[in-house]
């Protein structure tokens, strides 16, 4: 007995030390991440509106029922899908092309890189406001240019015509997100050893073979991690839409994140907003599990 106590003592003081080192971080994360998280989930099942805080009570699944009955919610759900995947595909493809171009050294590469990464350093709201004025149907510069070039004869209401509005906010989002993929993929590309290409060349591989059998398999882990992250970010990213269209016209550009914000700003209804949030968590959790299972085999190529 005595022996074991003696043996354990240093371990426990060490773990105490670790515990106290971690404590500030744990407290912060607990207070600012987990407390609001669980509180929000709780609100989803309560009648919780700013209008009358004296009457907060448990109402079961009523909030979920209410929002599922709203056509705007269903539209936001389908919009979220287009918003995420169309944005992601274009961001990834264009970002990847830029990363491939930037891999080879050329004069002024550093400056050029700076320009490409610039969009990533701006706030979403700012980007939204800039694009909102550029795409303005009456005084926007994009319409003006298209008119002068002669591509169109009548101004297009990019943000006021439901046929264009979702595409317009996606364009702004693509512009914003390209830089992220360019940065991540460029870093990964630079880690590929040159001798891999050399030996592939000796085996008679052309440019196309090198891309699909060396480059992409080698950076696969980065691709998986960055696309996974990016999907979650885009899904949760209301800034651009909020600043550009605020979900309009007629709800045609609402995604779940802006729909949830709307519930609070206009309705002051934290219960329904919480319910929308819970649905978002469930969707993202399902997506993450599915995605990680589906890409398990691609844990980097075996060289």
């Amino acid at each position: 007995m005595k022996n074991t106590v003696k043996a354990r003592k240093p371990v426990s003081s060490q773990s105490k030390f670790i515990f106290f080192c971690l404590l500030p971080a744990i407290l912060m994360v607990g207070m600012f991440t987990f407390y609001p998280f669980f509180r929000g989930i709780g609100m989803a099942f309560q009648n919780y509106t700013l209008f009358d805080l004296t009457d907060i009570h448990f109402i079961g699944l009523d909030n979920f029922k209410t929002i599922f009955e709203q056509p705007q919610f269903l539209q936001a759900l389908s919009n979220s899908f287009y918003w995420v995947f169309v944005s992601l595909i274009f961001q990834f493809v264009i970002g990847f092309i830029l990363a491939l171009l930037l891999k080879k050294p050329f004069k002024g590469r550093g400056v050029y890189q700076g320009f490409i990464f610039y969009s990533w350093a701006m706030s979403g709201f700012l980007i939204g406001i800039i694009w909102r004025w550029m795409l303005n149907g009456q005084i926007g510069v994009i319409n003006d240019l298209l008119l002068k070039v002669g591509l169109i004869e009548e101004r297009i209401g990019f943000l006021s015509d439901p046929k264009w509005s979702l595409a317009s906010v996606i364009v702004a989002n693509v512009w914003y997100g390209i830089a992220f993929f360019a940065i991540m993929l460029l870093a990964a590309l630079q880690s590929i050893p040159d001798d891999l290409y050399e030996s592939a060349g000796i085996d008679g591989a052309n440019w196309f073979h090198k891309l699909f059998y060396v480059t992409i398999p080698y950076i696969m882990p980065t691709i998986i991690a960055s696309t996974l992250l990016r999907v979650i970010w885009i899904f949760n990213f209301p800034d651009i839409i909020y600043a550009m269209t605020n979900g309009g016209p007629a709800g045609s550009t609402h995604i779940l994140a802006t729909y949830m914000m709307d519930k609070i700003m206009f309705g002051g209804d934290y219960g329904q907003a919480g319910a929308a949030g819970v649905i978002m968590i469930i969707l993202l959790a399902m997506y993450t599990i599915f995605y990680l299972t589906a890409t398990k085999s691609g844990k980097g190529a075996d060289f």
Partner: protein
Amino acid sequence: MVRTKRMALFVLTCVMLTSMVMSGCGSSSKDSNDSASKGGGTVTLKMIESLTSPERTEVLKKMLGEFEQQNPGIKVELISPPLQNADTKIATMLAAKEDLDVLEVRDITAKQFVTNKFIEDLKAYTSKWENYKTLNDSAKMSANYIDNTPYYIPYGLYQKILFYRKDFFDAKGLTPPATWQEVYEKGKALTDPAQNRYGYAYRGGAGGDNFTLMITQAFNADQINPDDSMFLKDGKTIFSTPESKQAMDLFTKIYQEASPKDSTNWAFSETVESFVSGVTAMLINDPDVIAVTKEKMKEGTWATAPIPLGPTGKAPRFVGAAGWGMTSYSKHKEEAWKLIEFLSNPDQNLVFAKAVGLIPIHTTAAEDEFFKKGAYQPFIDMNSKSDQYFMMRDATDYKGYGESKKIAVEDNQALILNQRSVDDVLKNWDKYWTDQKANQKK
């Protein structure tokens, strides 16, 4: 086993510590404030504003400085959150009973603050206040809107007027429109897409609900219950009448034939920008736009007029208000009232109203030259003809008021884009407000 136990203990400790830290924050700040006020002899008032702008905050700070000079025992600490979400922030602070003494109450937040018992009934103070008598009708009505009790003293009134391009109208030999029908006809005459010029700055986006309501109220006029602006005297909603259908048909035509296509989603800044830059010839907005037009447009190119009338020959006055109130849990109520009284006295109010671009709250201000001529003239005209421009206030005492604004904007967008019919939209609004009424009685 040991490991899971230890984990559980660890998690528990975290939770306890977190809650301790959180509750600790709250109580310690209260204590410190208490001791300061009792010990030092000076009282620190905490004040929060809502409709903030850098210019306005500066004006307010100057006024507070003057107040502190006159009252050496009182210091005022002003909190100015960014405009977006300021009201949500104030509500959250009030719910957490954070130290606040004086706060900005808006017509749209008053009911919520009263229901949650956040703000104090000011009757005990206003009954002794000598300047209460000179408050004008709109200001008095706004102050007493909830339960006929003065819960705040307005610092100014927002009221819509029509701005028009005098040069465009003169060039076509037109006079400013007096009715909504004329807004349509003259707007259409001024519209020329080839020149990128349109008659009316249509507000289809955020805030557009004010305009659909304004025109429906103008068309229904005498049928409306003056105490319950979304309902008729017979208890039905204002959206149930054939007049409302005419109003919305006309308003849709104003969009489709006399406004820029792009304006489906325009909010405050786009409509003002389009007017100032010469794309649109008419704009209905609040008096704070006068400062913008004065700064950005040449004199003589623009003018103002009363808002258009319905076929009834009447129109709602469309007054909004915001002002100063005090928290129900303030520990320095006497001092807080002193501050509210100071900010609301005729001299200070005039300074504030002029600087921000508002209609002053005291009848004495009508004699001030500034408000007698030029752009402010229509306000005086409208307010002196109270039979023609009847008083109407937003239905802010309904729970669904906030959400109704959003629904009104979205449905109206679907209407003007021909995605939904007038009947369909009006039926939806009718049902919404009927439900609101039914739920309110519960």
